[in-house]
């Protein structure tokens, strides 16, 4: 897992990962790259990350990958990332294509639902929590109900 301040250098990271597994005999390499889109007059996005829980979440996915003979890598930005810059790369390597195609989908979806990262729109210099696009982590609300 690799965290960077600001935008990711996507070609460089994709090359580093490809080169690092070149001789590992994986038949399929599928990166997923997330790039900041222009919408709602934002000038970019900004991210907070809570690293201790992100680390343990990612470790659990590394173990799931291992059980399927695959490996998973991930890079994410901290702080501000401007329009048309990229903030997220996940990648799976596996011997077989079906495992890789299914694993990247499962990983990216759980990442969106569970990874402790908070997104803010950058609008006229302000950081506005992207509440409507955010997902409550499974099991949320424990401290909210009546006793």
């Amino acid at each position, binding site marked *: 897992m690799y965290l960077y301040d600001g935008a990711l250098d996507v070609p460089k990271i994709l090359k580093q990962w490809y080169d690092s597994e070149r001789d590992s005999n994986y038949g399929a390499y599928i990166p997923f790259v*997330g790039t900041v889109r222009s919408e709602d007059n934002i000038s970019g996005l900004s*991210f*907070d*990350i*809570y690293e*201790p*829980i992100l680390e*343990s979440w990612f470790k659990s996915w590394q173990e799931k990958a291992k059980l399927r003979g695959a490996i998973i890598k991930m890079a*994410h930005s901290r702080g501000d990332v401007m329009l048309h810059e990229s*903030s*997220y790369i996940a990648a799976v390597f596996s011997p077989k294509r079906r495992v890789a195609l299914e694993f990247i989908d499962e990983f*990216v979806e759980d*990442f*969106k*639902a*569970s*990874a*402790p*990262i*908070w*997104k*803010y729109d950058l609008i006229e210099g302000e950081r506005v*929590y*992207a*509440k409507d*696009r*955010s*997902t*409550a*982590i*499974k*099991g*949320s*609300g*424990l*401290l*909210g109900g009546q*006793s």
Partner: protein
Amino acid sequence: MIRVEFLGPIQKAPLELDIDNLNQLRSILQKDEELQEWLQNSAVALNDTLVSSLDVALKDGDKVSLLPPVCGG
């Protein structure tokens, strides 16, 4: 003492509380008007592991974190 941290967009400084369990924490936090919505939609971690029940004893030095809705990527 138990340290309580509010992560991401929850604009609140950490608390140091003298409590024994998460039910006590719930009672204390529910008195804070500004936290009402966050309590409904946040997950809870004890020492950086998510918990799924309030039946958890706390001991001196424990850290409790509130994690509001996420959106990485």
